[in-house]
């Protein structure tokens, strides 16, 4: 037998020091919930103010180039701060060409466009480097459709360039943000494509995590809060893209827009032999895909390529938004195109005409620019100098005004 006799436990009371808990689990949990609630509320509140009052566009220090991903809330506030309710909102999306790469902030083409259009319009540049027509600016414009019903959205493509309804991977964080915050119109082709994107076998886990993050962010607003913090207080980690390592943690809103000025960059630095060689190849291939000569010796687009392009154009934007969308077709610099054989020049023109007709078929407005530009209007193969930007603004403004009239915005 065991000689162990159970002893009664000593009585304890609140006054007994040994019984005092150091941590209170329920209070800790309450603090956790309260903290999350406070952070979410703060994020939701602070993102309603313009974080970039001095910016004319999302330059690299407030863009994914430097691991800064603007949120929908942030870009919507950017627009609200620049457009009065009585103005016609003109949002410029698209890629680096419309962003104004090569044009300093004070001479960027969208400023010239604003001057031509006058105070009745408010031009806001939401283009990003490498962005497609359906990325950031497009989602922001769509999300503001009720707040600014008189709006025109502009983006650019190359001839027959596909515009995916869900944008491109580098900027898909904006789609996630907009989609899970319920800011977009229901649009079956896009919804279906996004569903398929999320379910793609190879990336299913990663995309599920991303979806989970976006759903959590819709409630907790952590991206809004920490972008506000990063823009106005200090950036929280160092990135390789820095003008100066000492400025790694500097608040991003304090950085100036220091875009390269193609007007002051010598020609031989912009057009090095290797750049010329590569860009010549790209220029020659501008309209290569899908075109062949028919029996009459005319360039003709293969039926499969035409159908694919038209399918992308039909699905790119929701039907109600198509009439207010102006697609600009970008050309290559005449420095390169003038060296092309007449036959290739004809093929390019055919491709541009087909592209315009394809977009217009679904109710978009479309316009090509650059056919009358000089080599000095381009800083490189595609990006414009200040003079080229001025010409682009002059070419685009009448189309915008005509569109505004046609849509009944001027009544």
């Amino acid at each position: 037998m065991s000689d162990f006799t159970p002893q009664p436990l000593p009585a304890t009371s609140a006054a007994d020091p040994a019984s005092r808990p150091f941590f209170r689990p329920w209070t800790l949990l309450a603090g956790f919930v309260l903290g999350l609630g406070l952070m979410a509320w703060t994020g939701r509140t602070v993102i309603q103010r313009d974080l970039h009052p001095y910016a004319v566009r999302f330059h690299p220090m407030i863009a994914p180039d430097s691991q800064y991903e603007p949120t929908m809330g942030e870009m919507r506030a950017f627009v609200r701060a620049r457009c009065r309710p009585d103005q016609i909102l003109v949002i410029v999306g698209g890629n680096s060409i419309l962003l104004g790469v090569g044009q300093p902030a004070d001479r960027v083409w969208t400023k010239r466009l604003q001057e031509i259009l006058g105070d009745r319009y408010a031009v806001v540049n939401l283009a990003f480097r490498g962005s497609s027509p359906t990325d950031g600016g497009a989602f922001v414009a769509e999300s503001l459709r009720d707040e600014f019903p008189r709006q025109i959205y502009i983006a650019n493509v190359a001839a027959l360039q596909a515009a995916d309804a869900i944008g491109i991977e580098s900027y898909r964080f904006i789609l996630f943000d907009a989609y899970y915050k319920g800011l977009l119109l229901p649009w079956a082709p896009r919804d279906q494509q996004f569903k398929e994107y999320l379910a793609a076998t190879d990336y299913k886990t990663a995309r599920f995590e991303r979806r989970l993050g976006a759903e959590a962010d819709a409630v907790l607003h952590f991206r809004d809060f920490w972008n506000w913090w990063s823009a106005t207080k200090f950036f929280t980690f160092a990135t390789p893209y820095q003008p100066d390592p000492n400025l790694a943690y500097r608040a991003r809103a304090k950085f100036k827009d220091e875009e390269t000025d193609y007007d002051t960059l010598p020609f031989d630095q912009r057009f090095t032999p290797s750049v010329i060689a590569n860009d010549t190849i790209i220029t020659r291939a501008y309209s290569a895909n899908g075109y062949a000569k028919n029996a009459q010796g005319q360039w003709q687009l293969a039926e499969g390529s035409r159908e694919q392009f038209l399918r992308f154009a039909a699905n790119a934007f929701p039907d109600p938004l198509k009439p207010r969308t102006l697609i600009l077709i970008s050309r290559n610099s005449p420095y390169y195109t003038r060296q092309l054989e007449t036959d290739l020049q004809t093929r390019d023109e055919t491709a541009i005409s087909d592209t315009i007709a394809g977009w217009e078929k679904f109710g978009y407005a479309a316009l090509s620019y650059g056919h009358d530009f000089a080599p000095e209007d381009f800083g490189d193969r595609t990006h414009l100098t200040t003079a080229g930007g001025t010409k682009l603004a002059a070419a685009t403004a009448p189309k915008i005004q005509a569109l505004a009239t046609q849509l009944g915005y001027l009544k």
Partner: protein
Amino acid sequence: MPPVLRKFWDQIPAPTATLLSHAGSLVVGILTAFVLHYVLYRIGLPSKPFIYVAF
């Protein structure tokens, strides 16, 4: 808990200790939320900057 801290904790009057333990737990809870909020933001960012190539 280290003995020195335990001794200090035991010497605090009961009502004050209760108040302190609640206050401390609340602060730790809020700080945990703050850290989680930041981690959620940070893990969602790409590990490398977007490198732009003109096309």
